[in-house]
C-alpha cells in the first residue's frame, strides 16, 4: 500500500472506498481497498484481468455487497444494509463493458427509461435532454433506431449517454472500449474525454494506458485484490515506483496493448 492511497482515504471525496473486502466463496477478490475519488476527478483503475476492477466498481454501484469495510458517497455510508440501493444508484451512472442496452427499446427510450421511471425527470424533460445529448454526440439521427442497428461504438456511446443523462454525481465505467473493434475505440474515448472536460467525476476501469494517462488525474494499480500503487497518472504510468506496477506495464508494452 502506498502513501498516496492512504492519504486520500479520509472520507473527503465524492466516492470513498474504505478498507473494502469482498470474496466470492473461497476466492478473495478485494483484500482491503482504500481509494478516494474527489469532485471533478477521474481515477483510472488499471490491473491485469481478474485483479478485481469490475468487482470494485460493482461494489460501488451496490451491484455486489461488500464483505468488510465501507463505501461512502458524498460522505454518506452507502454500504449499510439500511440504505436503499435504488436511491444510491440514481446518483451514480454505470457503463458496462458489453453496453447492455435494452434491445426492445429504441435509442431515446433507452436513455430516458431510468430517469422517467425512477421519477428523476418528467418524460418531456428527459426526452429533450436525451435528444440534445444525442445530437451533441453525433447520434441525432438515430433516436428511433433499435440498438442492434447501431455499430458497437454507437451502442457504447448511447450507453454512456444513458448513464450520464440524469446528471449523476459520478460515473463508473467498466472497460467501456474493450468489447469494441479497434477503429471504434476512438469515438467512445472522445465522449469520455468530453465528460471529463465538463468536470464529471469518474472511476474508470481500463486497459487503455494511453487513455488513462491522458484523461485520468490519478491512476490506481490493482493486483490480486490490493491497490499496489496510486498516484498521478503520468507518474504511475511513466515511472511507476512499485516493481509489480512496472512488471504489469512491461507486459502490456510487450503484448502491444498499451
Amino acid at each position, binding site marked *: 500500500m502506498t502513501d498516496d492511497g492512504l492519504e486520500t482515504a479520509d472520507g473527503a471525496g465524492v466516492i470513498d472506498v474504505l478498507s473494502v473486502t469482498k470474496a466470492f466463496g473461497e476466492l478473495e477478490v478485494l483484500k482491503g481497498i482504500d481509494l478516494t475519488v474527489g469532485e471533478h476527478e477521474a481515477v483510472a483503475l488499471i490491473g491485469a484481468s481478474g485483479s478485481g476492477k469490475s468487482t470494485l466498481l460493482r461494489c460501488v454501484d451496490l451491484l455486489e455487497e461488500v464483505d468488510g469495510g465501507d463505501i461512502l458517497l458524498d460522505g454518506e455510508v452507502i454500504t449499510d444494509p439500511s440504505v436503499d440501493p435504488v436511491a444510491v444508484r440514481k446518483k451514480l451512472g454505470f457503463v458496462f463493458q458489453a453496453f447492455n442496452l435494452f434491445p426492445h427499446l429504441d435509442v431515446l427510450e433507452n436513455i430516458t*427509461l431510468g*430517469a422517467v421511471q425512477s421519477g*428523476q425527470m418528467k418524460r418531456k424533460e428527459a426526452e429533450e435532454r436525451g435528444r440534445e445529448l444525442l445530437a451533441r454526440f453525433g447520434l441525432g439521427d438515430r433516436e428511433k433506431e433499435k440498438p442492434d442497428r447501431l455499430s458497437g461504438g454507437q451502442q457504447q456511446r448511447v450507453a454512456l449517454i444513458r448513464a450520464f443523462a440524469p446528471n449523476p454525481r459520478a460515473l463508473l465505467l467498466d472497460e467501456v472500449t474493450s468489447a469494441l473493434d479497434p477503429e471504434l475505440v476512438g469515438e467512445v474515448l472522445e465522449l469520455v474525454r468530453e465528460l471529463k472536460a465538463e468536470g464529471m467525476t469518474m472511476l474508470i476501469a481500463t486497459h487503455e494506458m494511453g487513455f488513462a494517462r491522458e484523461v485520468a488525474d490519478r491512476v490506481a494499480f490493482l493486483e490480486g485484490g490490493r491497490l499496489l500503487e496510486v498516484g498521478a497518472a503520468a507518474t504511475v504510468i511513466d515511472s511507476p515506483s512499485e516493481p509489480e506496477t512496472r512488471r504489469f506495464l512491461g507486459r502490456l508494452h510487450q503484448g502491444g496493448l498499451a
Partner: protein
Amino acid sequence: MTRPAHPSSTEADAIPAPGDGGRQAARERARKAKTRRGQAIAFASSVVVLGGLAVAVFTSSGWPEVKSQFFSVEAFTDSFPGILSAFWIDVKVFLIVEVVVLILGLFVAVVRTSTNPALFPFRVLGAVYCDVFRGIPVVLLIYLFGFGIPALALQGVPTDPLILGSIALALAYGSYVAEVFRAGILSIHRTQFESGLAIGLNRLQTLRHVVLPQAVRRVRPPLLNDFIALQKDVALLAVVGVIEAYRQAQIDAAATFNYTPLVAAALLYLAVTIPMARLLDYISRPDDPSRGMAK
C-alpha cells in the same frame, strides 16, 4: 452513416460494377427462371399427390356409405344452426379462460423466478401448483372439479359445471402458460436485469420495463400454441354435461344415426384454430434474414 434497413441480396446485386452490365441481366434472368421452375414443380406435385388421394378416397368401395353417414348435406343443414349456437359457449369459455390463464400464468412465473427470500413459500407453492396441474390429464381435472366440488356441498362455492369445468381448464392451462413465461423470463440475460438496476430502477420496475417485455416477445409462439390447444380442449367440458358444440353434435348424431353433425362441429373448431395457426406462423416468422432455414 446510414445503413439500409434491410440489406437484401437484390440491393447488393443492383450495384453496377464496371463492365458487369451483361452479367447482371443474366443473373436476373436465371433467378426468374429458377422461380418459374419452382412454381411449376410445386403445381405438378400438388396435382399428383392431392389428385391421387382424392381418387383413392372417392373410388373406394365404402365411399358412398361414408358420404351419406358423414357428409350428408341434409343432416348438415339441419344440425348446423344448433351446433353453431352451442359453439358460442366454446368461444365465450375460451375467451374468458384465456384471459384468466394469461394473468395466472404470468403471476406464477414472476413469483417462481423471484429471488426475494420473503417470497420463498410462494415459490414453493408455485412449483407445486405447476407440477400438479401439468401432471394430471385435463379431462380428469374437469371431472374432479365438475363433480367433486359440488359433492363437497361447500357454502358459497359455485356448483355450475360450466363454471367449475372452466376453472379446471384455467388452472390446467395456467400451469402450462406459467412454465412458458418462466422459460421466457429465465432466457433474459442477467446483465439486462443489472442494467435496469444500474439506471436507477427498482426490482419491480426492472421486471416490468426491461425483463418482461423481452421475455413475452420471446415466448409468443409457444404461448399461441397453448391458446390453440385450449380452444380445442373447451370441448372437454362435455364430460360434465356442458352442452357446447361437440356435445351438441354428439346429441344430434345420436338422434339421427348420422355423423355429419360431428363434421359440422369439426369445421367450426377449424374456423377458429386455423386463423390462429396462421397468426402463429406470422408472429414466429424470422424478422431478420439471418434466422430461419436457408433457401
